[in-house]
């Protein structure tokens, strides 16, 4: 339902379940499309392979941040206890690192959790409160029980008529054009 003067964002195809969505994703990937996404109410097993996607880098990001947190906090405890404010307690050495394990561990976990959460949001380009897909009334069902594939007009192989035909041929129950108002 493209309005005059509005730009097409892409097409949105609806599928009847997880099985059809997964096999359609495989075929779109094989057909060489790049800018598409499969929307579902919950993550679907095997979808990453079907779409030809690699593992998320978030694990490395969290690992690196956690290591920085560990070393940074260990250094802080060292600097405070040995350099800046040395306290002799029960005759223990100034850098009694065993006793510093609990705060060092806590900070390692804390920075890792921040990286996991905010790193995920950054990789997902969230928060993004407006998106052309939200212009579609039927897209609202993605968070209920609907399964969709969106294919963007920015894809080099995009051609509205051909893509619509193609999506119908691989099992879409309904295809609509989404506009970027």
């Amino acid at each position, binding site marked *: 339902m493209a309005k005059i003067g509005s730009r097409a964002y892409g097409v949105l195809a609806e599928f009847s379940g*997880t099985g*059809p969505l997964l096999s359609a994703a495989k075929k779109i990937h094989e057909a060489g499309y790049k800018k598409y996404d499969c929307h579902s*109410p919950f*993550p679907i097993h095997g979808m990453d392979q079907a779409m030809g996607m690699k593992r*998320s880098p978030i694990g490395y990001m969290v690992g690196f941040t956690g290591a920085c947190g560990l070393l940074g906090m260990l250094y*802080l405890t060292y600097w*405070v206890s040995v350099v800046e404010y040395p306290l002799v307690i029960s005759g223990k050495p100034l850098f009694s690192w065993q006793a510093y394990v609990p705060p060092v561990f*806590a900070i390692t976990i804390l920075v890792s959790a*921040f990286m*996991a959460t905010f790193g995920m949001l950054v990789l997902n380009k969230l928060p993004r409160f407006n998106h052309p897909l939200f212009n579609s009334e039927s897209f609202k069902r993605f968070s209920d029980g609907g399964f969709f594939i969106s294919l963007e007009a920015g894809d080099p192989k995009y051609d509205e008529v051909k893509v619509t035909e193609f999506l119908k041929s691989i099992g879409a129950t309904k295809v609509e054009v989404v506009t970027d108002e």
Partner: protein
Amino acid sequence: MSSATEHHDPNCLVTGNPTFESITESVSCIPESRTPLAWKIMFSISASLALGLFCLIGYLFWEGVGVWGLNNPVGWGWAIVNFVFWVGIGHAGTLISAILFLLRQRWRTAINRFAEGMTIFAVICALIFPTIHVGRAWVIHWTLPIPNQMGVWPNFRSPLLWDSFAVGTYFICSFLFWYVGLIPDLATLRDRAKTRIRKIIYGLFSLGWRGGNRQWRHYELTYLILAGISTPLVLSVHSIVSTDFATAQVPGWHTTIFPPYFVAGAIFSGFAMVMTLSLIARKVFNLTHIITKKVLERMNMIMLLTGMMVGYAYSMEFFIAWYSGNIYEQFAFVNRAFGPYAWAYWIMISCNVLVPQIFWFKKLRNHLVVMFIASIFINIGMWFERFVIVVTLARDFLPAAWDYYSPTWHDIGLLIGSFGLFFTLFLLFMRFLPIVAMSEVKGILPQADPHKSGEHHG
């Protein structure tokens, strides 16, 4: 509202053969329907108690900790009893959301959301007590290594400092874990919203979630990582809480059994609290097909297991006291069981060791009324466990220094008020947020598996 609640088979994870839509409907209709009268009544009671808590805290700041029943041998009293009690309650939430997630226990999806909510609210209640107990709560930030004009830094060897790091981290991580889990479900509420204010609020908090697989792949790994890092965290938090006691050179406290014993007790008490809350929620909000009897039975089994671990720790403490050959250590335990606080000790033993034994019987661990009453007894018993540990200090080394600790009206008021705060937050959560993780429950339905749905051609 939903038709899927009509019939149920107690052996399935989710009963009544629901569709994706019926799960959405039966969970989302709770925050969307009119406020039930029962909710209004419960909310006004608990909010009044919470208000009372803040008044009492104000009075405490004005008057000082002298308003409590503390005396010389018992310097910690109810403040630390309540602190350890509330932190412990929180631990079951993390256990359910993180450890059972890593162990692929799919029955957790029915209860994980409000177990996580319970964790956050319990930790809020817990954090109040050490904060007000320091006497000068307005300088509580001195426990953190923040540069200041006095040039003073904290001592990183102190378990009380470890506490502020561990519990603070625990609160923030639990909150992030909970919020990340909520994002897809908030998007569901956003997409169903009819009024403008709901569209704006749920729209803001769902961050524009679109459920694309390009988002899910980062999301799933993040969730796994948060579960992975929460698991050692939850075990460390209560271990660190126990070192508040264990590093003290006091008979009855200075023992290495404390960390595992405290962790087991924390999980035990937390499961009891999850049980109490989920029995109420499934009754009030008609969620019997999602929080099934099978889920409740498994929780009872965990309570039976952790209850026996706690029982083992109680007996092992006695054995070690005898085996140590230390008369002060031996006296501490004989005094616990037969001294002036014997009444509290035997309440603890009956509630924590004897009551869970009923769960050996399949009939009893499937009986809703029995498990509800048992869960309340366990909550009481676990509060008394911490009470016994803290106040039996009233008889330490020198008989001349012995005293008897009794709480004042202010101590009792703070405990009641903290329950008020907990239930206020919990009721707000039940009213405005999805109390069951819809996207996760949908994911465990048979039709969610692309290879079993019968329409797969790939």
